[in-house]
């Protein structure tokens, strides 16, 4: 292609036409903070993990169980909490391992894969938490319905039980839906370019 040869000639000829950056300026640059996408994903991921850990830490059902004279359930909840912590720690370790594997020296495709992998870990972590919330909401509602005498009285009348169940289902769906939308937006904006380029690279090797 003739034009491309012409371009190459011009490209080579102008190789040294850039305004040179001094060593002092390079020193300054390497002490500045990166604003790369990896950094952003790291910050957001840590915030997410702290937020979810925080929520589960402050959520305490013991008082309610004591109040309703169902102390025997406290032990079950303790096991669930321990299980939860083990899972969370596993997620954090996995995330850290994936994050450490990100390297700009590998090929472009591998780099993209590695970044998406860290994202996936956090995504699963968020879904795990959402599932836990949904499950605990269901358990919570069931407990309240079956254990709380006041609700018992209320639901024995008319169609109250059905209405309550419908209400609870809507609550769960709305909460999960809002989170889903939030994540779609957040990471959609953040990763749009990455996904586009990754798909482009994948297409070449099809």
């Amino acid at each position, binding site marked *: 292609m003739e*034009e491309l040869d*012409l371009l*190459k000639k011009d490209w080579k000829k102008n190789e040294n036409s*850039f305004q040179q950056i001094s060593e002092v300026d390079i020193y300054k640059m390497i002490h500045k903070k990166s604003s790369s996408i990896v950094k952003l994903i790291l910050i957001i991921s840590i915030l997410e993990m702290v937020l979810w850990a925080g929520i589960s830490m402050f959520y305490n059902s013991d008082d309610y169980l004591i109040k309703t004279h169902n102390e025997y359930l406290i032990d079950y909840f303790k096991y669930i909490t321990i299980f939860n912590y083990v899972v969370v720690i596993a997620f954090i370790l996995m995330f850290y391992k994936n994050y450490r594997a990100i390297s700009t020296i590998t*090929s472009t495709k591998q780099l993209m894969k590695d970044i998406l992998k860290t994202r996936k870990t956090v995504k699963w972590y968020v879904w795990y938490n959402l599932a836990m919330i949904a499950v605990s909401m269901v358990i919570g509602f069931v407990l309240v319905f079956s254990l709380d005498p006041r609700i018992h009285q209320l639901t024995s009348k008319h169609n109250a039980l059905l209405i309550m169940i419908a209400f609870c289902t809507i609550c769960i769906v709305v909460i999960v839906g809002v989170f889903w939308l939030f994540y779609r937006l957040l990471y959609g904006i953040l990763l749009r370019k990455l996904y586009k380029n990754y798909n482009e690279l994948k297409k070449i090797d099809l």
Partner: protein
Amino acid sequence: MSENLEQSFVQQLRQNQNIIHKICRLYTSDEDAHKDLFQEITIQLWKAFPKFRGDAKFSTWAYRVALNTAITLYRKSTRSVSTVDYEKHSFFISQEEYNSEEEEQLKLMYKAVHQLNDIEKALIFMYLEDKDYTEIAETLGISEVNARVKMNRIKGKLKKILNP
């Protein structure tokens, strides 16, 4: 990190900075974005420098990190690019040495290259830098055969942009 390491890095980067400038020229459209990307590439190079062993050339190593940063890590600023900035920034055709027809062709060519997507730009960049297909394929993480095929398609695409 030790001061020696820092000094050695800064020196080598200063000597090889044109590699980064060239990538910035291809991937950005105005002065500010050029500086921005240059800085991000410098930070990424510095972060990766402790893993850099002397067995490869600094420039070869820098190509990869710089391209990876431009394609994958760098977030473009959302500011819209004005054509004036773009023209001022991208072209450096010296008037004396080309006839006006060639000059016009070059301008169109630079414009066409700027219309390519990030991956296509990377291939064109390495082509302009006389990299062989083995290196192009390794850098991007695709097969050599497919790198060739893609390069031919890009040439076709450029032709189409130039002669619609």
